[in-house]
């Protein structure tokens, strides 16, 4: 089966400049494709996980940016009385940029004693006790720690905020790893935030039997008579709504991903076409020696596959490495989408490379396999 492998590899090596250019083109295109796919995956993970469907966000009515939503902190007690509500977490949000940004920094101020139970966070380093006892301490997501080069003990300042890192955590929800958690009071009292007794939003955790939409309606109805009207939505809906501009752009960008795949297809097909045209006589000789047309077909397809697979592997592995070590994220209005490497992404990148390699080789392989031997021998 692999008897002609040396011939395939040597044929590619014969035109190494062409091979290297093709492989590098395919690698760059697959790198871009994997980036686009990782953003899509990040958005999907953010809006479709169980937490986003079973958790409600209570926000000030008709407000979008975290800085403009100011809800009384004691709404938490009223919300907790509504049937179906298991717990309420008041959250003060501060972000360095309300617009879309690739380096968004989001602080969530929460009651220190509630955070550990409200979130499924795994502390990679540092201590919960220090977080609870030290007012300006913060535990930060591994993604932002990587991106900003922070470790336990680091002092981090941005705007009027200055915190001391006392822990770094990971989370099964990648977007969580872009957050910085501080004590609620610390964030409320920070100069410029000026939010004593006020929070940005209430996060409502439900009983397993509760209907989220029904509870949301009840919350809004019960707070209608309060000083600030609210809009309560599932967390996933809230996040999609908050990121609506980005969602549109990401929706458009997935066409860019397909364009990259098309680019690889065109690049490999062109190279294979040129390669086969250059070697029509060689393929005629092979068939004269007794190589079956189907074997010639497979030889050409193999060349195409090797080119595409090497390029695809390089591009996919580069993208995964950058995503892993880069800690990249995009966000707007306090909600972030994490770019994360994943097994699905690796399989998608490599699988697509395989498929493109086969498709790109079909026409040249057909030409080589079912040529007129006599004419090409005398060419």
């Amino acid at each position, binding site marked *: 089966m692999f*008897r*002609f492998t*040396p*011939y395939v590899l*040597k*044929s590619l*090596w*014969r035109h190494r400049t062409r091979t290297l250019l093709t492989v590098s083109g395919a690698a760059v295109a697959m790198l871009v494709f994997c980036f686009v796919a990782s953003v899509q995956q990040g958005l999907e993970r953010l809006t479709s996980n169980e937490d986003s469907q079973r958790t409600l966000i209570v926000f000030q009515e008709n407000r979008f940016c975290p800085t403009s939503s100011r809800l009384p902190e004691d709404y938490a007690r009223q919300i907790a009385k509504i049937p179906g509500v298991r717990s309420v977490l008041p959250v003060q949000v501060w972000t360095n940029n309300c617009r879309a940004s690739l380096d968004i920094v989001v602080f969530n101020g929460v009651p220190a004693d509630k955070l550990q139970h409200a979130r499924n966070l795994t502390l990679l380093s540092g201590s919960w006790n220090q977080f609870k006892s030290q007012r300006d301490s913060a535990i930060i997501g591994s993604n932002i720690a990587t991106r900003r080069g922070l470790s336990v003990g680091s002092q981090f300042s941005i705007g009027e905020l200055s915190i001391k890192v006392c822990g770094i955590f990971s989370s099964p929800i990648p977007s969580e790893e872009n957050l910085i958690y501080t004590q609620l009071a610390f964030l409320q009292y920070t100069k410029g935030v000026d939010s004593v007794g006020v929070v940005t939003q209430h996060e409502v955790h439900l009983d397993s039997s509760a209907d989220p939409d029904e509870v949301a309606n009840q919350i809004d109805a019960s707070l209608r008579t309060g000083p600030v009207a609210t809009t309560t939505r599932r967390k996933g809906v809230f996040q999609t709504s908050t990121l609506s501009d980005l969602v549109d752009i990401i929706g458009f960008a997935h066409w860019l991903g397909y364009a990259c795949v098309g680019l690889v297809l065109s690049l490999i097909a062109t190279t294979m076409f040129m390669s086969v045209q250059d070697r029509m*006589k*060689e393929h005629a*000789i*092979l*068939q*004269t*020696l*007794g*190589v*079956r*047309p*189907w074997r010639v077909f497979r030889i050409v397809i193999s060349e195409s596959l090797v080119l595409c697979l090497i390029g695809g592997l390089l591009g996919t592995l580069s993208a995964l490495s950058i995503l892993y070590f880069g800690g990249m994220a995009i966000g707007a209005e306090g909600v972030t989408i994490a770019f994360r490497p994943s097994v699905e992404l690796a399989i998608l990148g490599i699988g697509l490379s395989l498929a493109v390699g086969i498709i790109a080789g079909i026409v040249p392989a057909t030409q080589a396999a*079912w040529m007129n*031997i*006599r004419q090409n*021998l005398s060419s």
Partner: protein
Amino acid sequence: MALVEIRNLTKRFRKGDEVITPVLELDLEIEMGDFVSMMGPSGTGKSTLLNLLSGIDKPDGGSIHVDGVEVTRLSRGLLADWRAANLGYIFQTHNLVPVLTAYENVELPALLLPMSSSDRRKRVLLALEAVGLSDRANHYPRQLSGGQEQRVGIARAIVAHPKLVVADEPTGSLDAETSEQIQVLLGRLNRELNITMVMVTHDSDVAAIASRQLRLEHGRIVEGTGKANGGIGNV
């Protein structure tokens, strides 16, 4: 029974409005171990006959049997299998694969046959030894002289132990001295290994090494000479 039996073979080509008939109702028999040379002016159908005999072209009429197999009826895939097992082809311009070494070029036809890698290696080394190129096994075609390249081409043609070897102007691109070496080699392979050979040539000196010398004109065999003259039709 003759190894090769050609009956009433006809081949036509269309060139614009004109129809050319390089082979017309040709009959020929070749016995096992024969060394047949075919001469004749350009365009008389020598190479066409060789291509038909090799199964790389299809006739418009007639039949070719080789060792009892009617090659003119085989599909393209089966013809390839048949060539791999039964036919060696020596080209005028050597036609070695440039990215493969002499060893790998000779090994190509053997890769298509069911045999172990050690048997294959033995056969390749024997074939290279038969053409006197054991010491050039790892050289690439660009590192060989024209004569050495042709000898690699001959080793490639005999490595699968074919029943029939066809040679299309095997000395056509060589100088006189190298041409003579190749002629001696072909004659030796025919005699010592009892390989049946059909050779097309323009050169009467080269044709003279064959045991049967045929002459083609207008698609027919018009003259036959040599030690063994039997089995010639159309004479």
